[in-house]
């Protein structure tokens, strides 16, 4: 099966702090891959390196066959990204922001697509409101929309559910599951373990920048394992070490 993400010995240091430490992992096409880890484990830095938002200090990352450090713009052209912080431009309305994204990404026929997303995520009544005046949840809906509106083959999404209410979380989980069923790939960074166990086909655990484990969720379940308890035992053991 085709690999859409290949990270080899990927490292990132901020001064003396090793945010990501020689991580090697691969994500297959059609997977819903969950990157799990406690706060500060390096998940966001991993996504930032995979999308060329920050340069690695070691190793390499290829996304859809493209070197993310050498051609970050091409990577970002072909993938969808939900960043850790929801930061649409303050003084554009929600609709104007989508038009801005469409103009940058050269997306034709935005109108129908935008309307579909406004209805699907239930924020059509906010489309003429400035982004700075939107609630965090609505901003997150907007960032979710911009990540998927060009129907990318791969989406790298950082804590996409964190600002959503339970109803919206359910809706979005279903959407993500359906998205990978149609052949696309999702790289999901989260520390909501129950969500990861429910929707991910594969997962990896990062702790203090190091990869502790990577494998299919099905294998864990086949052995009678439970992702939250497996995660906690692995991280606690590593913490003691």
């Amino acid at each position, binding site marked *: 099966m085709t690999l859409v993400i290949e990270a080899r010995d990927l490292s990132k240091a901020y001064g003396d702090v090793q945010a990501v430490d020689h991580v090697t992992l691969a994500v297959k096409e059609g997977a819903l891959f969950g990157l799990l880890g406690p706060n500060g484990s390096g998940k966001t830095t991993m996504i*930032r390196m995979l*999308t060329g*938002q*920050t*340069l690695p200090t070691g190793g390499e990352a290829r996304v859809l066959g493209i070197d993310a450090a050498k051609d*970050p*713009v*091409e990577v*970002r*052209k072909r993938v*969808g*990204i*939900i*960043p850790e*912080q929801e*930061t*649409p*431009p*303050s*003084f*554009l*309305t929600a*609709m*104007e922001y989508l*038009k*801005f*994204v469409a*103009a*940058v*990404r050269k997306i034709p026929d935005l109108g129908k697509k935008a309307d579909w997303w406004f209805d699907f995520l239930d924020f059509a009544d*906010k489309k*003429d*409101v*400035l982004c*700075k*005046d939107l*609630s965090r949840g609505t901003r997150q809906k907007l*960032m979710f929309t*911009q*990540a998927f509106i060009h129907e990318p083959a791969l989406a790298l999404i950082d804590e996409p559910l964190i600002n959503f209410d339970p109803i919206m979380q359910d809706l979005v989980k279903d959407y993500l599951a359906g998205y990978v069923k149609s052949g696309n790939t999702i790289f999901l960074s989260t520390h909501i373990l129950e969500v990861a166990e429910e929707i991910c086909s594969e997962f990896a655990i990062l702790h203090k920048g190091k990869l502790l484990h990577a494998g299919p969720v099905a294998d864990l379940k086949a052995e009678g394992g439970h992702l939250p308890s497996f995660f906690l035992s692995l991280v606690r053991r590593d913490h003691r070490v």
Partner: protein
Amino acid sequence: MFDLFTSMLREEWRVHSTMFGSLSFALFPFLIFGIAFMGSFVIPLVEKTLPVGNLAIVVHANYLVLGLMVGGFGMLGNEVMNRRFGQASLLAYSARSLPLSERNIFASFVVKDTVYYFFLWVFPFAFGYILASPFIHVPLASALYLLLTLTLSFLFGLCGIFFLSTVYVWSKPVFWLFLILLFTGIGGILATGLNPAILFPPLLLHNGFSWTNLLLSCAVLASLFTVSLWLFNPESVGSEKRYEDTFSPLLQRCSPLPNPPLAAKDMIDLYRSGSLIGQTIFSFIVPLVVIWFFLSLMDRMFPSHGLVFLFAITTGVIASTMYTWVTMFDNFGPYACLPVAVSTLISGKLTTFAILQIIPAVFIAVVAALSGEAAYIVPAVVLGIAVSFYAVSVMAWLCGLSPDVLVYDVKVLFVYLVLVGLVITVFSAVAFMNPYYSFAAIILAIPAWLLVQKAKVRWDAVDPAGF
């Protein structure tokens, strides 16, 4: 309250030192000190062509303008600073999580900024002069006295523009009324044949100490500061005002330009935030009117046409700071999920900057016409705009998307001063020789273009993870 103030001081230090290192930030005042110290030795040499009285006017005017340029705190209630430094979660925006009123936090922020500017700009300059004074036979008391009057000059600019910008945000009609009254007052004084500059308290003090003047100055400053704080109104969050789509028509209009979506977005940012009008008034027109006024006091020192060209060059330099207007809304963060490179953003910001150059072009033309030099409108505009584009290319090369932060890197400031200072000197001389030689400034397009290309390559190679 004092804890908050000291934490803000520490925070400001770290904002800069994380961008370019503690040493480069710490050396900034040393550069200003060095310029003043060495510059002091030139005073006896230029005394014949530039009498000490006029030099005092120039220096005080410079610090008044510096205060004017940095004092627009009234505009901070809006989203701009939050966007620029939002991800750094500055203390100034933590009112919702601290048991302190927004006004207290804001007051600490303004005092902190004033203290920083004092130690970065005002004190090192005066200290340089104080240390040089024994060598140039200036009494120490007189040099020390300059520290006081320069500080007052700076504070008059800062508090004056703080007051005006707060009134502007508070009530536009009151602001315009106030401005009309102010200019009518100045016009009235001019009509009597008096020079209003002599009524400028720091200059009055500089010419002769008086406790009354000093106390009056302090009272005026304290009043301006207190009223500004009292009027300050933090922007309400969560209003659900609705806006029509302005982006699509602007995108159409910008389509012949490079990076139309980025330029359209920047124009909307400027317009809806109130910055386009606010910055034009407080960071452009007011400082330039003050500069024009002080320059006109020294018109006998220049060739007959010289003043308008010197003013065009000065306008060009001030106009180049419009680049900070368009870069203050966002760093690379909000664009990181889109297929744009830092170089594309720089190019987009420069496109918006180019659109804004209509303001200095019109301004130079109006000033040239009003000062009876209408024949020189075209060469003056060409000179001013050429200098502006050249200076902004230097800024883009040195600072990328963070000119307002990186300018405090001593290496950046030094290179900027050398590169821009050289051009100012050469083209002032050229324009003084013959007004029409100013057209030669078009040649600045070549280094400007090269510097922008270098800026793009340079900042694409830098990890954009700033704040």
